[in-house]
């Protein structure tokens, strides 16, 4: 505990750590916006916290997401939570929740994405053991490996309509960054 207090004696570091504990899975830019720290400073403090085993980073596609090691733990659900934060993947998972299994084409038609995009997303989900695949008469059927866990996480991360509006508003201003 003394080690934790020592590591968080700087207010900037404490701010970063609290943001990571409160919002597990934030990526660098979002963390920067919330802490209002310069890029170099944030990177330095994150590296420091990682060296002290207080924060860990997980590379997910083009994003590096940060989690607290000691704080609120998501354990094996961490990967699933990361994926559920991405709109397209969440749509696919939500669709699979309503079916026992479905083909790539059926999923693509339901979520409004091209079959190749869905195939790419499915490979990520299969690779992380979130979605299983079985072959039947030369067709691949995809299904959720653990629908109960998905439902549990989705309930925890459900956004209200107002949250969606506010998030879209923030995204619009983020996209105008000089």
């Amino acid at each position, binding site marked *: 505990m003394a080690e934790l207090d020592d590591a968080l004696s700087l207010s900037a570091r404490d701010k970063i750590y609290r943001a990571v504990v409160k919002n597990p899975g934030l990526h660098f830019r979002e963390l920067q*916006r919330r802490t209002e720290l310069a890029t170099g400073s944030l990177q330095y403090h994150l590296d420091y916290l990682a060296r002290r085993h207080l924060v860990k980073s997980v590379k997910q596609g083009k994003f590096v997401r940060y989690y607290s090691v000691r704080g609120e733990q998501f354990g094996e659900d961490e990967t699933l939570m990361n994926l559920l934060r991405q709109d397209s993947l969440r749509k696919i998972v939500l669709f699979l929740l309503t079916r026992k299994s479905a083909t790539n084409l059926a999923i693509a038609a339901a979520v409004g994405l091209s079959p190749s995009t869905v195939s790419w997303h499915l490979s990520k989900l299969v690779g992380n053991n979130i979605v299983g695949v079985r072959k039947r008469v030369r067709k691949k059927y995809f299904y959720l490996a653990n629908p109960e866990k998905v439902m549990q996480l989705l309930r925890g991360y459900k956004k209200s309509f107002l949250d969606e509006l506010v998030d879209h508003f923030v995204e619009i201003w983020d996209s105008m*960054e*000089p």
Partner: protein
Amino acid sequence: MSFWDFLRPITQTAWEINLAAESLAMLLSLGILVISLLAYRKTKSKRLLLVSAAFLFFAIKWILKVADQIISPGFFFSRASEAVAELIILALLFYAIFKK
């Protein structure tokens, strides 16, 4: 038939629905103000604080314009005042876009 003759029915219709249009604009501006304030509360970003300030001026402008139509004896909110309000709004939005 000149171009202006073609526009006349449109401006006439706009004049007839002026109060409703201004009231709707006022409600929408208040809605955007609330969303921008919630976005600021969520992110604590100075850029969004500037955006919220811009939408605050925007909402005030529309409240005054509607009040002008309903409760003030004449035209309290002149075109000059509107121009100043819009200048402030645009300056805040412009600054918010370029602020890092």
